Every structure is written in structure tokens, then in C-alpha cells.
């Protein structure tokens, strides 16, 4: 099966499972790595997760995340990489206390968009969205309580979704790790995996094993 690379910039060669195992053995690693073969990961549908924020807020959240990490020649947008799935999972599981504040904040943000442009936030142009987010980041949107804190949380959660283990529903097809050149979660590293002055080969491995990489 053809291996699909998640991003263009990290032009590292993907190392296959056998090569990795061999490298690990050569280096005398003690416990070898239940490595994940991710050959067909990008073909599968995104995981079914609940949407505790509701679909209106999900649309706003996706639009915000996609201005933080837009689609471009370096790779997919945040929402295309599953960031909204990640945030929903966190809000449904370990981050439940944040749900009311985040839900209200996103709804208020959407109200600002409608008041200003007659369309909801997700339907605005990128330029219009950026203008509103810039004001939110600076705490200058009167309609949004604690706007700066809300922006910081949205930024932080977007980063968590994009760059966390795909086990949690984001970083689909390892798009986030490909973007920054993080090879993958492993249980042992070889000296080759600590080389400088070059982009390392992408491993596309989840820390939770093949059956748990979320895709």
C-alpha cells in the first residue's frame, strides 16, 4: 500500500517498520517499540466523537482554529487535521469544567460577527475573521467577557489538537507532527534519531500503538 506523507515541507523520508526495528536492534535498544504501521490511516473517516459545544459553536471553533493554522502549501488546516475533534474530546472527558466558558465565548464571538457583518463568524472572509480575532486577542471586543483569556485558550487548545498524539482525535495523518518535523512517539530512540542539521525521517508512530492512533 502506498504510504502517504502528511505535509510537504518536512521532506523527510518515511522509515518503514522493518528499517526501524533493525535500527533499534543495531543500537541495542532495550525494549523495542510497538511501532505503528500507519499505511492506511488517512483513508479512514474521522472518529465519532460527541460535540459538547453544539454544532453552531463547533462551526465557529473550526473557523477560529483554521485562522490560527490555515490550510496552505505546508499542510492541512487545523480543522481538517481533526483539531475540533480533539477539543470536543477534551471537553467531554478531562476538560469538562471549561465547557460553559468556552461555549459562551464562542457564541459571543459569533454574535460580534453577526452584528458587524450580518453573517456568522464561520461565513466571513479570512480577512474579516482575522480582524475580529485580532481584537479578541487584544481584549478589545466589548461583547466578549475576558476576551484575551478566551483567545489564549482557543490558541492553546488548537495547538494541543494539532500537535498531540493522534490518539486523541487531532493531528490526523500526523499532519501536525509532519509540519514541525517531530518524527513520532516511540518507546526508545537511537542515536540516529538525535542527529542535528537535517530534518529527521518521519516515523508516523502513535504512543498508543497501531490500534489506538485514532484514525
Amino acid at each position: 500500500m502506498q504510504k502517504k506523507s502528511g505535509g510537504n515541507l518536512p521532506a523527510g523520508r518515511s522509515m518503514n517498520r522493518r528499517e526501524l526495528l533493525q535500527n533499534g536492534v543495531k543500537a541495542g535498544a532495550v525494549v523495542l517499540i510497538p511501532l505503528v504501521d500507519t499505511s492506511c490511516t488517512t483513508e479512514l473517516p474521522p472518529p465519532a466523537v460527541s460535540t459538547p459545544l453544539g454544532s453552531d459553536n463547533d462551526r465557529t471553533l473550526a473557523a477560529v482554529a483554521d485562522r490560527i493554522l490555515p490550510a496552505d502549501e505546508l499542510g492541512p488546516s487545523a480543522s481538517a487535521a481533526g483539531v475540533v475533534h480533539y477539543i470536543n474530546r477534551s471537553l467531554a472527558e478531562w476538560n469538562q469544567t471549561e465547557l460553559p466558558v468556552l461555549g459562551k465565548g464562542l457564541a459571543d464571538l459569533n454574535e460580534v460577527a453577526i452584528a458587524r457583518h450580518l453573517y456568522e463568524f464561520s461565513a466571513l472572509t479570512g480577512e474579516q475573521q482575522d480582524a475580529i480575532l485580532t481584537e479578541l486577542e487584544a481584549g478589545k471586543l466589548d461583547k466578549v467577557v475576558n476576551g484575551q483569556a478566551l483567545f489564549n485558550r482557543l490558541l492553546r487548545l488548537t495547538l494541543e489538537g494539532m500537535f498531540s498524539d493522534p490518539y486523541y482525535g487531532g493531528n490526523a495523518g500526523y499532519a501536525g507532527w509532519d509540519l514541525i518535523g517531530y518524527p513520532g512517539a516511540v518507546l526508545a530512540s537511537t542515536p540516529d534519531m538525535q542527529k542535528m542539521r537535517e530534518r529527521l525521517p518521519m516515523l508516523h508512530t502513535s504512543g498508543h500503538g497501531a490500534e489506538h492512533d485514532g484514525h
Partner: protein
Amino acid sequence: MAINLPETDVVVVGLGAAGGVAVLPLAWAGLKVIGLEAGTWMNPGQDYKPDEIHNNVRALVTTGNKAGNEVPTFRTAPDQVARQQPRHPMMNAVGGTSIHYHAQSWRLNPWDFRVKSATIERYGKEFLPEGTTVEDWPLRYQDLEPFYDHIEYEVGVSGKAGNIQGKIDGTGNIFEGPRKRDYPMPPLRSCEFVDHMTQAARSIGFHPYRGPAAINSQPYQGRPGCAFHGWCDRGGCHIRAKSSTDVTTIPRAVSTGNLSVVDNANVRRIETDNTGKATGVTYFRNGKEYFQPARAVLLGTYAYENIRLLLLSQSAFHPNGLGNNRGQVGKHHFGHWDVQAGVAVSALFPFDINTWYGAIAQGVMVDDWADDNFDHKALGFIGGSTLHAYTEKHPIASAAMNTFGRVPKRWGSEWKRFIAENAGRWTTAYIQTNTFPYSNNWADLDPNVRDPFGDPVLRITAGPKLNEPKAASYASGKMIEWFRAAGATEIMGGQGGTGPALSTHAHGGTRMGLDPNTSVTNAFGFVHDCPNLGVIGGSVMGTAGARNPTQTIQALAWRTAEQLVRTLRRA
């Protein structure tokens, strides 16, 4: 009413880095030991994950129920209302925070034991920082050397000696005190970045060396060498290569048949009789109250809880708290000033440094600007900082990097391009500063905030320090020089930090000393007016070295335990 248990020789409260070590010499000596631990056993294969969400975001390894219920409050001036902090920095488990610490494992510099007299000798009395209550330790480096040696060999520490019985070896730390012999294992595996930083340090006349680590660099005592997977920080070791006490000294003590571990035990009081002597401890476990009588008690919780338990354990003989008849419990308390709230120097390189894997302890260290290793005469401060360049970088934290002013926004296309290029090209140095006790820094019981049992939590008052920020800023300048020599194109930091906060390096509060008017415990760690109660942990230390305290805590704990063996044998 508490359920009375049969008497034991020694009850150890807390089986972390300190208590987990103390049980071994006690058990070896044939004493019957009960170890009470607020947490439970971790399962390395199951509980530890190579996963930033698990370890660093959700803090699933580091969270402890008991610690989480008694987070101290904090203020920077006595006229403020202290606020409870969001999270306790330590964890409850058999092995305690030695499970998830970075495992940099140091001997203090000989200077740390006699800061006061050494400063007066070299610079004069007026050179001591204003407001400091620093005293020389009641023991010298050479008194602790045999116990440092025990820890290195029995717990398992890797490293390279720089001074064996006075013979200096430039591949180790030339500033360290003399040691009897080398480490039992060579330093952890190096890597290109560590080699590169080592060369850069040499090129500007610094004396770099590989820092010691309580992590196996090769198989040792039935445990494997480090696999360098890069999840040491706030995660336990999945293969038991990190020498946490739950996989080293505690199981060996259990195997003698003399140590019984009681987990999920919430100790609330140390009980004393009408002569002031300890009779045992009262604890809760699964909703029931127990009294564990013992011939001697070793208090080995974290510094915060050591202080709190003494203050809570009031009796007719100790009306102001155990050992507090001279008002010294909680005094001379301080955190490692820079840890979690202080100076940081970050650097951006024009090439990939790829420090993703490895371990925080896989690094290179410079001591040239720490302790009294340089002339302070013209500088107006004492002490300094160690500089540590290291590996292990997690993807979310890497993407959330400082942009060094290179892009206007921290989001959007331009920023995305920036992190795509640079997330693997930056690093931060770990800078730790010699820190001293001051009269404006102490711990007592909070008048407002209580734990679920209704007991007050600890309140920390920490006013500004003037000496330590100067020392840290000076050393940061040296770190900037080092990064520049290594070819970094952007370097940020070097300013004094935001000051103290809750810390994994809390020190003092039950200080050791010869004078009961300025200390709580004697030269062996036993409470002056409660001689069968020993205190182990950072709370007995009177100064903080420019380095992690754990190995010193463990060496002191071993020494206290050996002294207890002698005392109980005499009785």
C-alpha cells in the same frame, strides 16, 4: 476512636525520594519498619505513556489526591491574603516524585555547606546578603561524602567523576568536592547537540561536563539502561531505567521481610507523650482511623507537609506544634528561587538541533558561574548558577515556541511557516541558582484555607530576594555567551525572573543546626526536643545549591536512618 495497631520499631511517613531511601538501611539492620504512603504503587508498563497530553497536559502521572487536597497558599508580603495555588508540584505514590523527576542527581558543592563562614573568610561579613538568616550546616561535605557514595551505588547514578580524592579529571566536573571513587555507571549516552554544546563551551574557556543522573546508562542492579524516548519529564520510566525509589531501594527493603508498605495512608498527626517524645502516628485509610505506635518516627513527606505536620501535631509538651517551642518550625524556608518562576535563556539555531528525544538529564553542564567558583569581589552578590543544555522536547510545547520577534503574530500563515521551520531549532537552558534563607521568607498555617479533614493548609510568605536575581542574571549572561559560541542566531532571556512560587525544590523549614534557637533538627536530622523523631527531606537543608537537591536529600536520609539504627540498638 482510632484502631490501635501493634507497635513497630520505626514508622516512616512518606515513601518518596527520602523515605524510600531511608527504609533500606533500617530494614538491612533488622528493624521492623512500617512505611506509610499517601499514594499507591504505580505500574510502569501501564501507567506511563510516551504522550504529552497524558503527562504534561492532564498531569496523569504527577497528580496525587492527598497533595492535591492540601495545596499551599502563597503570598509575597505579610500584608497580603495568601492565595491557594492551582496545583501541588509533587505527587503521591510509592516512590513519590522520584518517579517523574528529571533525575539529575547531584552532590552539593562543599561551599554550600559553609556559605556563611566561607563568605566571611573570602569577602568579609558585610558581603553577606541583607536579611539572610543563613548559617553553616552542622556537617561538612566530607561528612556526607560516604552517604553520597551509598546513594550513587545503591540507588544507581550515572556520571563522570571530576575529583577522585583530590585528583582532578577535566572530563568530569573539576569544581566538585573530592570523592572516594567514580560513579558506578558512565554518563548517559551523548548526542550531537550535547557534543556541539560541549565544544562550544570549551571554545570560550568554560569547563563543561556531563551531568550526573539517577538513570541507568547501562544495565545496573537488574534494571535496563535508558532508552532515551524523551518522556522523562512528568512521566515515569516505562522500563525502570530511572532510579526512582519504587524500583530501587523500596523493593529491596521489602524483600528483607522487614518493611511493610501501607499505601493510601493519610497521616494526620504525630503523637507525643508528656515528655515530648513521639509515640507514633495517627492516619486515615479507607475511611478508618488508625494509630501506629512506634519506637521512632521518620518524617519523610515533602518539605511543605513536613512543616505542616509538625505544626499540626500540637500537644501539652509541644503547644505550638511539634518541635516548635522556639518558633523555628517553618522559619528559614525557601524555594529554589529560579525553578518554575525564574530566569530562562532560550536560543534559536539556524539549523535543526532535533532535541526531541533523549532526556532532560541527557545534557551538558557548566559550573564555572555557580557556587563560589569565581571571584565575586566586584560583583556584589554571592553564589551563582549552573548552566545546563539538554534534550527532550515535546511537540505541543515546541510548536508553542517563543517566536523571538521574527513574526508579528503567534497565529496565522506567517507564524505557521515560522514554526514549520523552527520548532526543531530552538532550546531553553536550565539555570539553577544558589539560594539562601531570609527573614522575609517562611511558612506557617493558613488562617483561612483548609483541607477536607478541616486542617489548615500551609501558607508560604516569600518576600523579594535581592542577591539571587543578581546571581541568576549574571549567570544568564554567561549562558547567552555560551549559546552565541554555539552558533545560535537569536537568544532571549537573561533578565531576573518573576520570583518565587511553589516549587519542586522547596527547602528549609525544619533546618538542621547545632543551636536549637535557630534550627529545628540536630546535626543528624532529629528534632531537638523530640529525639526519637527524625525529619528527612529538603526541609532540613539550610541552603540550596545551584542544582537539584534530591541526591543530597537522599544522602542525608540514609545518614539519619543509620543514626537511628545506632540509637535504637543502644536503647
